[in-house]
């Protein structure tokens, strides 16, 4: 998970996996220096994009700098102080705690937790989309060769130390939207959370963060948050909850005398498998249809139900939801994995991250591409050839962030 930082991501040990690719860079690394300048320029002109609440001094801040170092447990009295810090250090990534603390700069167990919004993270990587296989790239960590598609060994040197570079497409975003909608629907129907309290953000790369601002859940412990996550993922659902039990011979029997209030997961599953339940009770019609279904599926109703649950559940990362001390990418800040910003989606259907989250300037620069690739940003298509290309800054920034291009000497 790299759009957030968990408590133990303080050390550099994890950086090999998630960290900045500039951590081993020479101080005069051209890409690093250029990008640092571009980011600084963005923060200088678009500072108002940063979404900061009223009680900024009660939140913990964290930064990843272009040299790969992580600074955590920082706090600022006001927006001016934060602004000065950002302009001075031009961080590659800015993180902010969803939790409020009495002393945000203290060690984790000394911070004095006040409460936190509920946060859900949906990551494109976890959806295992088919299209991703065709457009994602793989970088060899040993010889730096970049291949297309999914491979298990480097074509150049046979190394297995590979890193996926995700280049999400419009279809990826559509699939993510579907997941967000499922999540929002369960939150609304089952948890009674008003849609006005649900805020959806594009993570800046290949995912969404959903923030729930609701005082009913603000003080919920990590344990409770984990129960929420398990619920949303449909984990551990028992078929008995559908009013069906297994007898000694393993035959499934509907419990016809129990009143089953047809809401929550029960309603969702019954709707999805088209089993009618009238007046919250299992009647003869239900049993008939149920038996037919059971016969047709070799008694494997449990498998069927599991498939439906998988389809209906929200693909969230439970660790993010339950970790109350995690810091999240600040809305309005640039994601160094793409050069796009984490952006609030007022209307998910009309939101286009490749347009609405792209804020880098458009003066032309020279960039050396490592491969042949099509990129669509700010509503324009760019067909990039290996070697030298003249492209707008926002395309160049995207390529450098993805590690597929090198900036050329500026004149």
């Amino acid at each position, binding site marked *: 998970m790299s759009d957030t930082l968990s408590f133990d991501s303080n050390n550099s040990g994890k950086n090999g996996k998630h960290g900045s690719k500039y951590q081993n860079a020479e101080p005069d690394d051209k890409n690093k220096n250029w990008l640092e300048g571009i980011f600084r320029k963005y923060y200088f002109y678009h500072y108002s994009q940063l979404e900061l609440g009223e009680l900024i001094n009660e939140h913990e801040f964290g930064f990843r700098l272009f040299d790969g170092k992580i600074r955590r447990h920082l706090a600022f009295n006001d927006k001016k102080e934060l602004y000065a810090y950002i302009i001075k250090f031009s961080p590659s990534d800015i993180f902010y705690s969803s939790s409020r603390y009495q002393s945000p700069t203290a060690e984790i167990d000394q911070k004095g937790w006040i409460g936190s919004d509920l946060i859900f993270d949906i990551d494109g990587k976890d959806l295992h989309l088919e299209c991703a296989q065709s457009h994602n790239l793989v970088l060899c960590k040993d010889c730096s060769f970049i291949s297309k598609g999914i491979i298990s060994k480097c074509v150049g040197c046979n190394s297995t130390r590979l890193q996926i570079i995700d280049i999400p497409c419009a279809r990826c975003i559509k699939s993510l939207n579907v997941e967000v909608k499922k999540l929002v629907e369960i939150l609304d129907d089952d*948890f009674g959370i008003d849609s006005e309290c649900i805020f959806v953000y594009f993570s800046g790369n290949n995912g969404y963060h959903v923030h729930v601002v609701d005082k009913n859940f603000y003080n919920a412990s990590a344990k409770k948050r984990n129960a929420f996550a398990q619920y949303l993922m449909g984990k551990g659902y028992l078929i008995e*909850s559908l009013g069906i039990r297994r007898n000694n011979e393993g035959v499934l029997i509907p419990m016809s005398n129990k009143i*089953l*209030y047809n809401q929550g997961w029960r309603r969702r599953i019954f709707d999805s498998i088209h089993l009618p339940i009238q007046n*919250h009770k299992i009647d003869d019609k239900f049993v008939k249809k149920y038996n037919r279904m059971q016969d047709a599926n070799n008694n494997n109703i449990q498998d069927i139900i599991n498939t439906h649950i998988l389809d209906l559940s929200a693909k969230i990362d439970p660790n993010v939801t339950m970790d109350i001390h995690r810091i999240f990418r600040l809305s309005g800040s640039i994601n160094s994995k793409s050069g796009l910003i984490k952006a609030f989606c007022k209307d998910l259907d009309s939101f286009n991250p490749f347009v609405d989250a792209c804020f880098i300037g458009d003066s032309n620069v020279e960039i050396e591409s490592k491969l042949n690739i099509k990129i669509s940003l700010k509503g324009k298509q760019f067909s990039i050839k290996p070697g030298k290309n003249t492209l707008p800054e926002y395309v160049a920034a995207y390529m450098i962030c993805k590690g597929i291009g090198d900036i050329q000497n500026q004149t």
Partner: protein
Amino acid sequence: MVRFGNKDLAKYPFLKEAFSYITKYDFKLEDLDSKDYLHLIDKAAEKIENYLFFGRFEYQINYSKTHETIVQEEVIIFLISLLLIKSISIDVVTKKFALMESMRFEKYLISDLNTADRDDKTIKLILYKIFEDLFSTKILLEVDVYNFYKIRINDYLDHPIAFQEKEWNLINRTLHNGFVYLDGSEIVRLFRNELYLLIIDRIKKMSITRIPDTIMAISKSIKSRWEQIHHSINAPVSNAVTPPCIQHIYDQISKGENLPHPARLLLGTFLIYSNKTLEEMLELFKRLPDFDEKITRYQLEHLAGKRGNSKRYFVPSCEKIKLENLCYETRICQGISNPTQLIRKKSGI
């Protein structure tokens, strides 16, 4: 303040309202020395003996009196019971008593909830009173939907059972609009643990300068009878390596704690694997506060595959044990995937 005008209060002697029935007559503990109370002391003693030595709660409230007297007597019997348990002062006994007593109250609640006319305001008042005052949880009645009760999701998760038993996990509950929906028996079951803790708490907080002689004599006799039956506990696995998860269960039993269902399953299958006889296993399960010999015997035989055409159950894997929150992994567990491997490991098989 809620006014209960009828005998239903006799079933819930732990409520403040019930207690007021005796305080208004200026009842004092010293009064228990008087012969007038002997029949109530006997009734309390009999109840406790049934709980402790037979695992039964065959208790009858005597309804053949005026409403006022019925409530007074039940409150006094409840007080005497607490006094007896306090003076026996054995942790395991206190826990066993609290569990049995809470199960008795639970039974009343379930039957009140399921059989009472829903327009009966008194029953509803008692319920809301218990839930709000004693457990600070607000329950609401959803009249539009088959008289289901509902409780806020956040409040629901304050009850440990929501995490202990799969069926009670949030995922297996009916959620709608921010509430968890429960029927009468479910909502009462949810509070069993709290009721239990409340009784323990009442016993602990009792401060008494002098226990009446009649009560002292009975408590001494119950105590010595208990001690004769229960000598100190030894783990029945003779092998030097007891898997930490199993050891933890032994420790819980020693402390007189009740075991959640998955822990019983783990212990049962493990003992069967270790070739313990049914009698040896019963000896251990006997120490559980809610022990019922018939049921336990049946369950163990079922696990061993000796019942009907049931198949033998195997000791759950470490992974499963972890999921059930029963794993207490130590260094000796390295590289194993099932606790039984520890036994084989040490004995060199």
